[in-house]
């Protein structure tokens, strides 16, 4: 823990330093402009102070983002439309639903691919093709099509999440199900084990490390999917809606705090899967 803490802190400090320098450089143009219009001279210290506290900076300084985050999470009531927790919850619910759909779909496809030659040859190219289509292009269509058949609300966004998250699960689980040594499969054959037994006794447990790695990628993709799903609907709630509204009104602070909120949410989700991973692998005796 100690060993990893110092490098992490150094990197964070470096990022913050670069961020501050960029904020100063990018925001100073506006300050100088204002000063020139007012016909006053600004010294360096005034310039610095102003670039760090503009209302609509080109690049908000880190402390401004932190302040905005604090205001919109801790100080606002959760039910408020301005609460980032409220918006985060909206996005989180469709992320999680989509993640479960995508994971289930991914595992089912992987089972099919491993057991059926036709699926092995036929499914993978389509799965890969599905991921080459820009999600921004397909998301509005999914929403519109589902809306026209009467499905709206959580599910369309969840489906976009699922669309993004099934792929890492398919790829990871196919590799996982195929990870046992040939001799381990031969061994089960000498016991006259059925394909079913080979799957449950060998392939499934052997794939566990692969599963969790896929899930980590999948949950992050789900979050992206949910946010992208919120953009074309003109959604009124969700982190995506916050981003969109922020960019409409030039509210850079709102955009950056929503971005930070998203990043924190993603970190929490991936962290939760990491915990499930170590708990499971520990219990299986596979964590060394």
């Amino acid at each position, binding site marked *: 823990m100690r060993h990893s803490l110092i490098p992490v802190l150094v990197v964070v400090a470096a990022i913050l330093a670069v961020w501050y320098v960029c904020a100063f450089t990018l925001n100073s143009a506006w300050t100088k402009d204002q000063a020139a219009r007012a016909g006053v001279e600004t010294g360096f210290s005034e310039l610095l102070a102003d670039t760090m506290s503009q209302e609509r900076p080109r690049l908000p300084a880190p402390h401004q983002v932190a302040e905005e985050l604090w205001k919109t999470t801790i100080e606002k009531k959760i039910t408020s439309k301005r609460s980032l927790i409220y918006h985060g919850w909206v996005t989180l619910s469709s992320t999680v639903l989509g993640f479960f759909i995508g994971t289930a779909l991914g595992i089912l496809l992987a089972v099919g691919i491993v057991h059926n030659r036709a699926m092995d040859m036929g499914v993978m190219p389509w799965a890969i093709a599905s991921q080459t289509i820009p999600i921004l292009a397909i998301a509005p269509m999914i929403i519109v099509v589902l809306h026209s058949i009467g499905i709206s609300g959580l599910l369309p966004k969840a489906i976009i999440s699922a669309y993004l998250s099934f792929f890492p699960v398919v790829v990871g689980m196919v590799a996982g199900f195929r990870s046992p040594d040939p*001799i381990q499969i031969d061994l089960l*054959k*000498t*016991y*006259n*084990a059925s394909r079913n*037994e080979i799957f449950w006794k060998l392939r499934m447990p*052997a794939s566990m490390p692969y599963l969790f790695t896929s899930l980590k990628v999948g949950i992050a993709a789900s979050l992206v999917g949910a946010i992208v799903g919120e953009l074309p609907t003109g959604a009124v709630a969700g982190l995506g809606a916050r981003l969109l509204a922020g960019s409409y009104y030039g509210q850079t602070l709102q955009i950056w705090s929503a971005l930070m909120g998203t990043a924190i949410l993603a970190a929490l989700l991936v962290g939760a899967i990491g915990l499930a991973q170590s708990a499971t692998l520990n219990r299986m*005796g596979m964590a060394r």
Partner: protein
Amino acid sequence: MESGPGSEVASAPTDNGVGEPIITARDLSLSFQTADGVVEALSNVSLSIDRGEFVSLIGPSGCGKTTFLRVVAALEEPTSGTIAVNGMSPDEARRARAYGYVFQAAGLYPWRTVAANVRLPLEIMGYSREEKEDRAQRVLKLVDLDGFGNKFPWQLSGGMQQRASIARALSFDAEILLMDEPFGALDEIVRDRLNEELLSLWRETGKTIGFVTHSIPEAVYLSTKIVVMSPRPGRITDVIDSSLPRERPLEIRDTPEFIAIAQRVRKGLRTGHSR
């Protein structure tokens, strides 16, 4: 064979029919299609193995010794020729659970404890819970691993892992134990010890053992019959019936009798190669 102490482990019919052929292969051939053309892994192999025998297959890589074992276990289909196990086809014999197979790598499942690994075949074969426990305990004791049942495989040395895999193969009382270079990856000292243990295990259980090896001393020390094979195409060049007694201390390897058999094996390997 006399039913020695400890023969209760082998409740299989080991005491009757000793000396009768249990595995009979006639004109067995098997060829693979590879990128470099057809490889004849086995060419006209005829071999008869009697019940209760300890038969070693020895030869250089590519001589078909492993392939032969895999054909016996119904893991490979011969291209031509016939093979009968207990009067059945290998596949039928497999369904009758006639084989315990031990591979070169122990191949224990890392997510199962040693005891749970030993119980694996029993689970598939549908033994009751008490029976599974019972048998796991019994075979672990047989291979000198009692007390290690709750350990995970990575907590065991290579030799202990291979012993656990032998226990796993013994757990369901298969009549025939097929071993594919089980000690090939172990060092000499551990190997000697396991050879000794395997011999006493064979004497106690009266199983028929098919054993693949690279090592001449190992083959001579263990076997009642040594089958010398050579590659391209894979075939049998010599079959030697050992004159050594069943009771074999390690020192038997220094006797003139042992050395004479080893020389004959070596000669068989050489002639096979020069052809």
